[in-house]
């Protein structure tokens, strides 16, 4: 504790001493690349909104012009792909989803190795990022991206409805989850026990927690697809049952926004999804239940407590960029310690240990949520989707299975479908060898 205060003090003193562009100077920004223009493409999020607001400070401190573009998630990868297909000259800094894009981007040579940039930079402090986040953005010891948004699969609870049903705390196991669902489900009054993603492709990530909970996985260590094992079938049927019996009608088209709406309107007693979306649920302008939100750790399955704990977004530098140093200045500033804390206050689930330990974190996050996050972090699984080059297509295939399971399908039919899906995933895996 003392140590950090000293560090802060020195930082503050240095800033005063230099007295130009405070904050920015702490991160050791350089004026060497003044006059260069870099393009930055990221996904819309509270953190990136914060960055966009402060971008003037960065430009002033470094003299670098930033063309900042914030898009919807899938559109970011559209941009990256098209620009890279043309050689990537127009692409300096971009956001990407390590879990579904790392392998492909690295294989295609779109990402610049970053080790030489941050090595020895104590202010940036690469070791400060969560180990799992560093691992997923690296390959064979080479770092290709800097993680900035992490998320865990947790349980959101409407405390009012939970109390009304005479329940307390949160369901700890799958059996308890079913019990709770039975008690909380009240379709006659338009209130449903659960809000869960049912749109196949989107549901894959939330399903992963259950898949692991039953002891299954997308594929094993030897890269054999395992989507047709008894465990996987059981998980599919369980997830299907939850969606079919305890979720609002139309569950098949529900992505996180739809389930969030149900929850914030008080129409769903529980919701399973990412903790990173909590700010919307607790915003009185967006939510009728803003003061009634409770949090719980993802329930334990026969094979253990297996929520995902993933790095959703990272910043990378394009390998074809003509302004790599200037780009690094930007990355260093954007996900440096100061900006990262600002992001957290704005509602971003940071990937930095120091950010979570900061004074700001204690007041910025709801206490119960912070506890749940701390409890989920060590048990969490680092992937929430098939982590492979053709993950996009594999995800769609698994999404189909989830859709079938939700629509209600016999075990035999599901088995047949799963065998087919498994073979297709296997073919994708084999093609990567």
């Amino acid at each position: 504790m003392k140590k950090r205060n000293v560090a802060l003090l020195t930082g503050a003193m240095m800033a005063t001493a230099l007295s130009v562009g405070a904050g920015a100077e702490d991160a050791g920004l350089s004026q060497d690349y003044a006059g260069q223009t870099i393009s930055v493409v990221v996904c819309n999020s509270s953190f990136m909104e914060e960055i966009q607001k402060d971008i003037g400070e960065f430009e002033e401190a470094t003299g670098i012009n930033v063309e900042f573009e914030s898009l919807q998630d899938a559109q970011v990868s559209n941009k990256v792909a098209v620009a890279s297909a043309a050689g990537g000259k127009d692409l300096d800094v971009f956001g990407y989803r390590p879990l579904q894009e790392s392998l492909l981007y690295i294989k295609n040579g779109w990402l610049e190795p970053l080790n030489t940039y941050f090595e020895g930079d104590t202010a940036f402090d690469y070791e400060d990022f969560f180990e799992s986040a560093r691992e997923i953005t690296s390959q064979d010891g080479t770092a290709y991206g800097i993680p900035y948004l992490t998320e865990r699969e947790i349980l959101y609870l409407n405390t009012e409805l939970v109390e009304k049903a005479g329940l307390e705390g949160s369901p700890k196991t799958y059996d308890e989850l079913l019990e709770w669902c039975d008690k909380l489900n009240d379709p006659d009054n338009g209130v449903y026990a659960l809000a869960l993603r049912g749109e196949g492709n989107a549901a894959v990530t939330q399903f992963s927690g259950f898949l692991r909970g039953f002891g299954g996985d997308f594929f094993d260590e030897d890269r054999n697809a395992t989507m047709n094992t008894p465990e996987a079938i059981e998980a599919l049927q369980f997830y299907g049952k939850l969606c079919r019996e305890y979720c609002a009608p139309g569950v098949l088209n529900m992505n996180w926004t739809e389930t969030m709406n149900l929850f914030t309107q008080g129409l769903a007693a529980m919701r399973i999804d990412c903790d990173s979306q909590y700010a919307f649920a607790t915003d009185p302008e967006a939510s009728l239940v803003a003061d009634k939100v409770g949090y719980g750790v993802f329930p334990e399955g026969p094979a253990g407590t297996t929520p995902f704990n993933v790095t959703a977004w990272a910043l990378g530098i394009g390998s074809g960029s003509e302004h790599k140093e200037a780009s690094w200045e930007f990355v260093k500033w954007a996900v440096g310690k100061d900006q990262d804390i600002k992001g957290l206050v704005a509602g971003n689930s940071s990937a930095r240990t120091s950010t979570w330990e900061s004074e700001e974190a204690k007041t910025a996050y709801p206490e119960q949520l912070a506890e749940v996050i701390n409890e989920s972090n060590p048990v969490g699984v680092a992937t929430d989707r098939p982590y492979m080059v053709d993950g996009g297509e594999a995800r769609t295939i698994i999404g189909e299975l989830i859709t079938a399971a939700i629509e209600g399908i016999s075990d035999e039919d599901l088995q047949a479908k799963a065998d087919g899906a498994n073979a297709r995933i296997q073919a994708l895996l084999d093609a990567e060898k």
Partner: protein
Amino acid sequence: MAKWVNKNIKWIFTAPTIIFILLCVTYPILYTLQLSFCEWGMSANIPKKFVGLQNYIEIFSDSRFWDAFWRTINYTLIAVAIETILGVAIALLLGKITRHTGIIRTVFLLPMVATPVAVGMVWKLIYDPTIGLANLILRKVGLPTSAWLGSSDTVFSSLIIIDIWQWTPMVMLMVLAGISGLGADVFESAKVDGANEMQLITRIQLPLLAPTILMAILLRVIDALKTFDIIYSTTTGGPGYSSENLNILSYRNAFEYFYMGKASALLIVFFIVVLVVAILYMLLKARIERRYES
């Protein structure tokens, strides 16, 4: 000089357009054609690999392609059929009105000119199963609610409803323009001959309007086959693949999976489909028109 210009004026006048088409249209098509025989993950660092007909074989042996193919055809047939019937009926109904025509036309114009991605978002909200307007109305009148875009059973018809809302006005306005072009004297003489209302419509108006209606159908067919914005902004092809048409399937292959070769092959096939449909339709139209003229 002036004489030379005068003599070659038709080439000078068409030159900009021809150059534009050669540079900006022909090149991309040739490029796409070439890519359709290659495997390429959109990386400038990894060269394209020639694979012959493999992409095409893959496509034609994939049930997902055939689903999208028939979905595209069915979507077009159903949507355009309903739009034509409704559009012609409404036009015949409104054709009698002589006052307030400006307001009426304007109202019908709006769905067509409103920005599709914005409209898609609005419909997404309207179709929301729990909080949307659509189900609210169904509940009010005591009908069972629907999952709309939310289920693979209803997503197709829900999208067709949007298409009908957006494009019936086009058929209607075209036919209305046709009616006003017919002039009143045809009807007057028929009325004198003692024809009743129904006969007037079936024997006189519809045959005279046939070329207009056929043109409206042609334009609609081409656009309906290529529907993109509305599907992109509402379902992007989901749930599962259940609202994927050929355009969305090509898009996903290119920009979601980065299978540029396969996507190119899909686009070529898709282009041929649209072309064949358009040619078939034009031949049919020419034949019908000849019959009416004789």
